[in-house]
């Protein structure tokens, strides 16, 4: 008997009700609160804000709960909300040299003005599952040192004094910054748009590409000039006031990768830059981003484009996980009209082959 294979309103409503039930799980177990997620799953919140490109810890935490911890789904929820927000202005560029630093490391200098500061890092922890965490045991208060009055200039600025590294571009060099959320991307891109795309790109995808550059697919000889994590002021120019006012502070991770460059006919040998900047605390993402940024500058330095990480259209077209997951997963939507057309042509071609075989025999 022919049963309609088509879905319906009731099926969708029931599926969503079941999803809500599974999300909540056993009702005997207390429900998660937004504050718990913000406090105890802070790095998940950071990733959600970074790739969702919306700095709002509460909405990110809500998205994480609503998505049952599926971070790409959470990022998607944040993006779909972000896109409806009206744009009332663009902030003044943030100044990471004036960051309230919580972590700052340089792999290129043993010591430097402002010092090295490990901060809250997993580095040097032994990855042993901890029964104390399982039991929810008390955690001692951390040791803090008084704020250091010494300035912590960026390592790349120190190098720049000697002209050893290419100069950084400033806002004045390119006052007309693109906005990939407002204008369609048109290849080839300038670095401003590439960096925007990388900043919201999938951490895993950029990690793999960055890794590939270390294994010989577009080698860039990178050194971590500096990674710094901390809070920076966000300011907005108010036309009526004639000066910038502070909107608040955001936590960011900045990575300045310093790369070897042999020089060319026009440019003396000097170090070049790969740059990474991410909302929240995410060294892995910021470092991967800087590796990819440098690899993608191949054209600018007259390097041969030989590897995927250097290929702008390849990298930028496929780094957005909201786009990727949508298009991969759309394959589960019905395709029976097209499949029918394919069935028909395969059957016909098989029949023709059969006829030819018979004729030959």
């Amino acid at each position, binding site marked *: 008997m022919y049963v309609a294979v088509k879905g319906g309103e009731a099926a969708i409503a029931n599926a969503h009700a079941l999803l809500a039930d599974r999300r909540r799980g056993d009702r005997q177990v207390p429900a998660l609160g937004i504050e718990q997620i913000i406090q105890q799953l802070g790095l998940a919140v950071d990733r959600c804000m970074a790739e969702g490109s919306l700095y709002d810890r509460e909405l990110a935490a809500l998205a994480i709960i609503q998505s049952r911890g599926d971070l790409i789904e959470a990022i998607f929820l944040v993006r779909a909300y972000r896109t409806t927000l009206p744009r009332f202005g663009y902030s003044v560029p943030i100044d990471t040299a004036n960051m309230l630093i919580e972590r700052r490391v340089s792999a290129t200098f043993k010591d430097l003005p402002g010092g090295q500061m490990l901060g809250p890092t997993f580095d040097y922890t032994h990855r042993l599952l901890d029964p104390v965490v399982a039991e929810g045991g008390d955690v001692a208060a951390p040791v803090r040192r008084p704020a250091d009055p010494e300035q912590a200039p960026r390592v790349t600025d120190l190098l720049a004094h000697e002209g050893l590294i290419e100069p950084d571009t400033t806002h004045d060099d390119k006052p007309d910054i693109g906005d990939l959320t407002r204008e369609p991307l048109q290849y080839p891109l300038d670095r401003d748009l590439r960096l925007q795309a990388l900043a919201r790109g999938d951490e895993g995808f950029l990690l793999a590409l960055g890794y590939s550059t270390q294994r010989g697919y577009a080698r860039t000889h990178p050194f971590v000039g500096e990674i710094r994590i901390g809070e920076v002021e966000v300011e907005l120019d108010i036309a009526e006031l004639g000066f910038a006012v502070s909107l608040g502070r955001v936590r960011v991770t900045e990575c300045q990768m310093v790369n070897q460059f042999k020089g060319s006919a026009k440019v003396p040998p000097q170090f070049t830059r790969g740059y990474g900047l991410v909302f929240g605390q995410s060294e892995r993402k910021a470092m991967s981003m800087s590796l990819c940024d440098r690899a993608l500058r191949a054209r600018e330095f007259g390097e041969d484009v030989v590897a995927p990480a250097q290929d702008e259209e390849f990298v930028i077209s496929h780094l957005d996980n909201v786009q990727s997951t949508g298009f991969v997963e759309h394959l589960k939507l*019905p395709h029976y009209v097209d499949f029918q057309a394919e069935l028909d042509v395969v059957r016909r071609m098989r029949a023709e082959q059969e006829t030819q075989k018979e004729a030959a025999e």
Partner: protein
Amino acid sequence: MSLIPSYNFAYLDEQTKRMIRRSILKAIAIPGYQVPFASREMPMPYGWGTGGVQVTAAIIGPSDVLKVIDQGADDTTNAVSIRAFFAKVANVATTTHTADATIIQTRHRIPERPLQAGQVLVYQVPIPEPLRFLEPRETETRKMHALEEYGLMHVKLYEDIAKHGQIATTYAYPVKVEGRYVMDPSPTPKFDNPKMHMSPALQLFGAGREMRIYAVPPFTEVVSLDFEDHPFEIQHFTQPCALCAATGVYLDEVILDDHGGHMFVCSDTDNCEERRAQGHRGHLSGEELEAAE
């Protein structure tokens, strides 16, 4: 920051709608040309019709009557979902009747009933670039369109004939619009291609993930690519619809058992229902099945 977000009529904010409408106007002015637009994230995933949804959201007004189909059917899950979305965010009337709709959003089919002047057909498009599988780079394909350099596509179709004795493309079959741009008709079966030609309705195509909008204005020439000695042909079915006995319509194959039993039914469910309401009966329509049991 308030935790209770609110949304505009038809979800998108008015600036975004204006941006999309400008792209649509440009697309209408250059039939078949892919206009880049700053596609937004939508509350459904990319690949689920975000381009079509954005086009519909930009053109829909409170007095519109919306029909949504997927695979020709009004009751496939994604069609139900998109229809419910607009009923919720735009509070518009919806219908399943092709004749009653002012806007029809579709995935993979064109309705069997000929469209009328004043109707808008909005296609959901996954890959808008007809040359994409011949040349993956956008920078290259843009040049090819600009120079009207379509030789590669003809070579592909020719190679099909050389290898298979026929053109093996069965859906998303490339067309030339108004003698200029080669265009992807979206993954509709090639059966539907002739319906695009000189249609009195406005046809709009939205590709969200790929950020492109293109259009076929009413009464525009749409020609499927072919060769003189291998003219374009649509699919033909050897049997009529098992429910409404329609011929000359696109049919879905439904598997009945695990012994190879199958039946063919209309892909366009609205057309099939209307025909049955008019008294047409196929050999497996409901009444006969009941009688057989």
